[in-house]
């Protein structure tokens, strides 16, 4: 697992997952479509990514699909990194 995926995964687990369920989450685990992260909470996840990686993620690209897994999140962030 690369560093970005590890950081994002740790953040998701820390902020959105009950500690008892940690071992079930992988970079491919659906987050939005499974209901782990709701659409309102996506806003704080997006803010974390922007703060951490110094990027600006356009609202029209920060879709439920793009945020559905740690893998897809990292793809999105990388596209916007300089």
């Amino acid at each position, binding site marked *: 697992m690369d560093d970005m995926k590890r950081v994002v995964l740790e953040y998701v687990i820390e902020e959105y997952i009950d500690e008892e369920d940690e071992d079930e989450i992988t970079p491919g685990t659906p987050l939005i479509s499974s209901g782990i992260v709701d659409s309102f909470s996506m806003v704080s996840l997006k803010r974390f990514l922007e703060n951490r990686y110094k990027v600006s993620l356009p609202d029209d690209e920060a*879709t439920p699909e793009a945020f559905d897994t740690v893998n897809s999140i990292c793809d999105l962030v990388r596209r916007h990194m300089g």
Partner: protein
Amino acid sequence: MSNIGSYEKRLSDFSWDEAKKVLGWREGELLNIGAICSDRVCAAGHGSKTALIWEGFGDRKTVYSFDDLRAYSNGFAAYLRSLGIVPGDRVCIFMDKIPSLYFSFLGILKLGAIAQPLFSAFGDESLEVRLASAGTRAILTTKKHLRKVRKIKDRLPDLRHVIVVEGEDDPANLRPYETIFDVEAAPRVETFDVHPSGPETPSVLHFTSGTTGQPKGALHVHGSIWGQALTTSWVLDVRPDDVYWCTADPGWVTGTSYGIIGPWALGITQCVLDSGFTSRRWYQFIQDNRVTVWYSAPTAIRALMKDGSDLPREFDHSSLRHLASVGEPLNAEAVIWSGQVWGGLQFHDTFWQTETGAIMITNVPGMEIRPGSMGKPFPGITATILDLKTHEPVTDPGKVGLIAFRPGWPSMFRAYWERPDIYRSKFVGARDDAMPEELRKDPTLWYVYGDRASYDRDGYYWFVGRDDDVINTGGHLVGPFEIESALVEHPAIAEAAAVGKPDEVNMEVVKAFVTLKAGYEPSDDLELDIMNFIRKRLSPLAMPQEIEYTEKLPKTRSGKIVRRYLRALEWGEDPGDVSTLADD
């Protein structure tokens, strides 16, 4: 022909007894919502009919008949009784939209207890406030949400039982006051001696937010079913062979009045999707289940719109027959868009609130839809617009005032839990010592709850906005006081104000203005920390989506924060009279 037929004809000869006709009611029958929605349907010979099509994330799908509904609700009723729960006790339902939510809701009502459904995304502080206020005796939850309950349990002396209905099967993992009850694994309970409730027996306690103070519990009664059943028939136009989908969560009133009571009282098949929102998933769900009647919310519709008109055309939605919407004003663009996408079917806006228990102003089938309008008062509902200053009914079409209703419709809430003073404050012209039962029967009063609107020359109502500081985000009311109280518990925050700011999808989202304590500096990381602090304590809905650091907050000379001023700036509106603001 729709169920309501001619709106004008219904207005001219209306009686709430129409609800009894719709239900095929015979005098002397047991008026208990839990039994009406399950036992009664079975007794009419429809026990094998599908009551619930449930889908979760992934491939999980389960189908339940009305006979299942009857037996599983019996199971919950019997189990709660075995724990010592008695009629009148408040029993909280705190779980996602899993089947046991629906079974337990009916079971609690069969027992004569009061169902207190709460949104499962609530954080521990939101949960605690509502359980403490209601003196809740038992809570039904799942392993997923148990941690939040455990965190607050010791501060809730009235809470005697925590019942885990899913996700835990090892009693060794439980604490002394916790039990496991899996209704589908337990022996099927074929008979239960249903509580002999009547029209005034308390049934459901829904919490709602106001401008000041903590959330209040709006108490409903079993007699509310007359309003819920009739509006389900006449407004949502459901018929025996329909597959109905109400997208609301039963943690909120739409999810109980129209996601449980109305459709099942009429023996309608309904489906539930307990999964995160994506447009594709919703469209697939409609296709797979051949949904015919769809009751949703403007926030969801606008989110679907964002994904464009081509996506829904990838699916077969030919089953759809009627669309309706509730929660906040449905913008004209959404009405027009739905007509374009679904072959002329337009969303019919409906307007009501937690306290009204059922639809009050609406576009009924057959009525000309004026996109952006709330429609007209439901038959039997006397509505008006009151002048903002005099509180007299306005006579000029187009003049903005307060929406008001004559009290007395069947589904009207009967009380704010242990707060008769607040209940009284909602009635224009009420005596200072009037009690709730007098107020709701007094035909000279107007019930006002804080929304502004106007009506046009043809009697259509047009929503304008709230008359107070309550934030309507995604169709859910969020109280600024509750958010501000939580904000100042953050170690960095000295003072805080929460207001609604415009949002394309959710109509409003929360924005917070904060002043920091000495030693703290504004930063992006602090903003994120504050956001997550509120999300976990209250709920994702209450989480500020923007935080503005400020040196000071606008206040009156007596020190009260003037949210009105901040809100006006966010909306680009005139802040009005600012002469009362303190200068320093």
